[in-house]
């Protein structure tokens, strides 16, 4: 790591919201202008710090939604009564400023250079954000690794990155699109047995989302025969 790049990650960097794009009624992607951005790896996150006019500060983590080489972007889903997410989804406008610490996290990352192993991505709600970065990176680098995403979402209108994820396995937990072959419900053993790479192929799994979702899914993958060391997790809390 170059010293300059290292220093970037050590301190809070000023960032300007360059672009705001609604993904769904509840989620918005913010593209950030970060002078001196050192570039990131697929799956990493940033810490975002907001400062109010009276000095009050709040810090939250957000996964990077863009692929390496692209401008840093985050996608935030509104949490009812939340302190930070409603601001980022509803209030912040292009030109507004935040501070960023990152990119960070060397664990929940995927790189094309990894040895050949099929990759299973499992995302719940906004947990799909870093997985989208990984998928985009995988496509852009034309990597031969077999990769598929299982994305658990409450309802059709809440699917983020809709166009990009059309070919992936969507699982609706509350409402499905009309005529959807599977009734609304959580990801279960049966579904995993259908869509997950079999354990004999030594797959690598990336599971991300609310803590309860991640606990449930990593348990289900262990039951399926995945090795604990081959399941990477990113709990959102």
């Amino acid at each position, binding site marked *: 790591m170059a010293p300059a790049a290292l220093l970037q990650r050590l301190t809070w960097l000023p960032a300007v919201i360059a672009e705001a794009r609604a993904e769904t009624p509840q989620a918005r992607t913010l593209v950030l202008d970060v002078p001196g951005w050192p570039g990131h790896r697929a799956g990493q996150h940033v810490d975002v710090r907001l*400062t109010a006019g009276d000095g*009050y500060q*709040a810090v939250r983590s957000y996964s990077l939604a863009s692929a390496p080489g692209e401008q840093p972007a985050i996608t935030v889903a509104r949490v009812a009564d939340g302190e930070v997410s409603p601001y980022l989804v509803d209030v912040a406008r292009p030109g507004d400023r935040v501070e960023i610490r990152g990119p960070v996290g060397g664990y929940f990352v995927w790189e094309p250079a990894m040895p050949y192993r099929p990759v299973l991505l499992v995302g719940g709600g906004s947990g799909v954000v870093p997985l989208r970065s990984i998928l985009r990176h995988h496509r852009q680098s034309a990597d031969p690794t077999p990769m598929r995403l299982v994305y658990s979402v409450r309802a059709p209108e809440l699917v983020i990155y809709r166009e990009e994820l059309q070919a992936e396995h969507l699982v609706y937990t509350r409402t499905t699109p009309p005529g959807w072959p599977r009734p609304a419900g959580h990801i279960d053993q049966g579904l995993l047995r259908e869509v997950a790479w079999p354990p004999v192929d030594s797959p690598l799994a990336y599971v991300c989302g609310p803590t309860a979702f991640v606990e449930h899914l990593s348990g289900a993958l262990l039951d399926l025969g995945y090795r604990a060391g081959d399941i990477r997790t990113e709990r959102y809390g």
Partner: protein
Amino acid sequence: MSVISQGFQGRGRRDDRLPPGQYETHDFPVLSAGPTPYISVDEWQFTIDTEDGARHTWSWQDLMALPKSTPHVDIHCVTRWSKFDTDWEGVSLDVLLEDVESAAEYALVSSYGGYTTNLPLEDLLDGKAWIAYAFDGRPLAPEHGGPARLLVPHLYFWKSAKWVRGIRLLDQDEPGFWETAGYHNYGDPWHEQRYWGD
């Protein structure tokens, strides 16, 4: 001051009733340093150990049989939120310490789950501290420290140990979990005693 995020206010509001550096909140944020222990009132017990090794023990029924108080207090968390006019129900430490023979000057409070916090014994006396088992007229929820927590509202709220299980009375001060991690040994919000050296 650093980069200001236009239009961001956070939860807090400023007010004269607030100690320095605090913001008022109407929520009751849940801060946890570890998994929430779930303790049934049947297995719950509370002990006071004196510096001479004498142990006093109360079961849940013993606690319920003691005269109760209903403190109405403001609470101040070191993470900068304060909450006004909170209503509690509990037993004053004056009642619990009444028959305890001790010349100790310090107390080390310990909790189910392993948490500890220390304070001078005199800060537990004279109507300043309670073993609280109800909040807002309802049994104290596990995430807020139920079945019972210590309530010492004149100090930062980390001193009000959740899931309290006992107090050791000591001749020598013994810093607790946050006190050994960088937080102030005493923690007076009005003097903004947050960290070591404040």
